């Protein structure tokens, strides 16, 4: 069933070492480090699923913040108890549906993903009528509309105040485990016939359509699949942050994910993993830039936001000089494959 080829051994080794690392981390590391690792794991889920639509299928969409917001709200509302909701909803009384919604963690995450997928499937018709730049701007607009809806329906979402005191019911095993599952799932999608069809759509949509691929169906499939995992990731993010509000899921989130997949290499899942580690880790590491700065004995004062300047310059430099990113379109475990056997 699983021939012990070099590639498979390498895959097995990678997964086992990550599981071992998670085990060591959860038991030995301090809260701060565990929090960063949680963050990295969630960003791996989000980046891998974003990569499916953006890198693998080649549809340059800017929607993840919308789906993450949907997932986060569904999970948060499902996990909060009825008493908590009465206490939290200050602008208007909670809607009876919202009060009736109460689920355990796993169904809550599943329904978060499902909600995002349903929205994605409805959205696919207008969105995939257009290509390229237009697609980008329509999906970008979608994120704004989600925010407007969240602010203007206080009986469902508590408006601009948002929700807080979401119970923390996850640990590193949950986030890390789901991250591993997501990446494995995405890799299996990529190497399935659907994945090949997605790549064909990316490389030449007209040619793909000419050889009998239903491009709309394939794009919708990729969109829905990535929406599902973005919803789940959003749910995990809500639990990790314990507080969510409509202002949290702005275009900035999408921008971070974009840097991650561009840095890792558009179309490479293991690239997305590496990108998540570098970008989320780097964000933490560069935190000193936002505080008071002393360089070469000079006082530069305090400049909140400098980190973001660094990251946007990084994105521009990658695009100008290293468009392939770290991995290109390759995967980590295919690096050692003999050449000519592609």
């Amino acid at each position, binding site marked *: 069933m699983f021939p012990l080829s070099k590639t498979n051994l390498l895959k097995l080794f990678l997964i086992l070492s990550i599981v071992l690392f998670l085990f060591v981390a959860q038991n030995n590391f301090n809260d701060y480090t565990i929090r960063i690792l949680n963050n990295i794991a969630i960003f791996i889920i989000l980046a891998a699923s974003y990569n499916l639509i953006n890198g693998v299928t080649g549809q340059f969409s800017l929607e993840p913040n919308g789906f993450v917001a949907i997932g986060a709200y569904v999970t948060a509302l499902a996990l909060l108890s009825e008493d908590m909701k009465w206490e939290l909803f200050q602008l208007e009384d909670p809607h009876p549906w919202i009060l009736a919604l109460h689920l355990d963690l796993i169904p809550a995450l599943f329904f978060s993903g499902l909600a995002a997928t349903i929205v994605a499937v409805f959205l696919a018709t207008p969105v995939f009528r257009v290509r390229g730049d237009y697609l980008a701007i329509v999906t970008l607009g979608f994120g704004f509309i989600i925010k407007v809806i969240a602010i*203007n329906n206080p009986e469902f979402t508590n408006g601009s105040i948002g929700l807080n005191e979401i119970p923390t019911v996850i640990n590193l095993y949950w986030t890390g485990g789901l991250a591993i599952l997501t990446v494995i799932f995405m890799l299996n999608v990529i190497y399935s016939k659907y994945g090949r069809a997605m790549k064909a759509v990316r490389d030449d949509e007209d040619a793909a359509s000419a050889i009998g691929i239903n491009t709309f169906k394939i794009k919708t499939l990729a969109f829905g699949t990535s929406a599902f995992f973005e919803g789940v990731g959003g749910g995990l993010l809500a639990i990790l942050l314990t507080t969510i509000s409509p202002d949290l899921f702005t275009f900035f989130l999408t921008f971070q994910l974009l840097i991650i997949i561009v840095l890792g290499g558009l179309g490479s899942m293991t690239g997305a993993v590496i990108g998540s580690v570098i970008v989320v880790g780097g964000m933490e590491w560069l935190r000193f830039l936002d505080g008071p700065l002393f360089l070469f004995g000079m006082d530069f004062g305090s400049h909140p936001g*400098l980190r973001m*300047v660094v990251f946007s310059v990084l*994105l*521009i430099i990658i695009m*100008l000089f290293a468009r392939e990113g770290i991995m290109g379109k390759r995967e980590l475990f295919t690096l050692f494959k003999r050449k000519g056997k592609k």
Partner: protein
Amino acid sequence: MDISTFIQQLINGISLGSMYGLIAIGYTMVYGVLRLINFAHGDIMMVGAFSSFFGMSVLGLDIYSSVVFAILISVIVGVLTDKVAYKPLRHAPRISLLITAIGISFFLENLVNVLFGGTPKSFHAPAFFDQTFQIGSAIFTPLVFIVPLVTILLLLLLLTLLYRTKYGIAIRALAFDIKTVSLMGIDVNKIIMYVFIIGSSLAAVGGVFWAINYPILTPYMGVMIGLKAFAAAVLGGIGSVYGAFLGGVILGFTEVIFVAFFPEYGGYKDAIAFVFLILVLLFRPTGIMGINFEKARF
């Protein structure tokens, strides 16, 4: 709603729409030439607004010289953007160009954030703009007349430039076919630079108008305004300069009237632009002016 309130809303809508139009022209021209949604264009407008704020509060300029200062800074930023970020990618896949544009947009927002701080700045326009006068029961500020007038003047100037000068012919030719134009001995990069100069200066004027009208400046103000202006450009028919202005006016007018008729749904005002965008793309992708990508231009 009586007639004078309607006229008041009409004029307010046209004024708001002219500002969208000014910014939309930049989108439409860059798209026409490079086939790129210049994501950074809204932020160039923001740079214009901030430069004029900086000129008035720090350098002590009056409003007119601060407009010139704003145009100058925006043009420098716009041209540099093209030279540094877009020019090396002329032959790269379009997606790379789009990602770079988003990078530039984020860079400008955060640079202004670092330079000026994150707290919103209040823009102090001269007292002239604060006075009001009454016609019937409708109350106007001078700006609602100045904005459309200046916009139409600039539009006429731009159309003269496009249709009556050698540079205008070159710009329109570029929109047809970049390769052939470069074979005709025209410096393509120079012409593209002129397009960025035109777009950025119009955006700067739009930015100053915006700052006088809504005197709260934040580094992220350009995102939403830029997106709406882009929606206006698509509504009018992207690639068409008249279309951009027309789309802007329609969008501004609809927003104002929507809030006037349905005040309880006022929160959804910002979504109108995207509804327009999606409807246009679904039913008439060439927009109102019906620009066919392969044939007519501007």
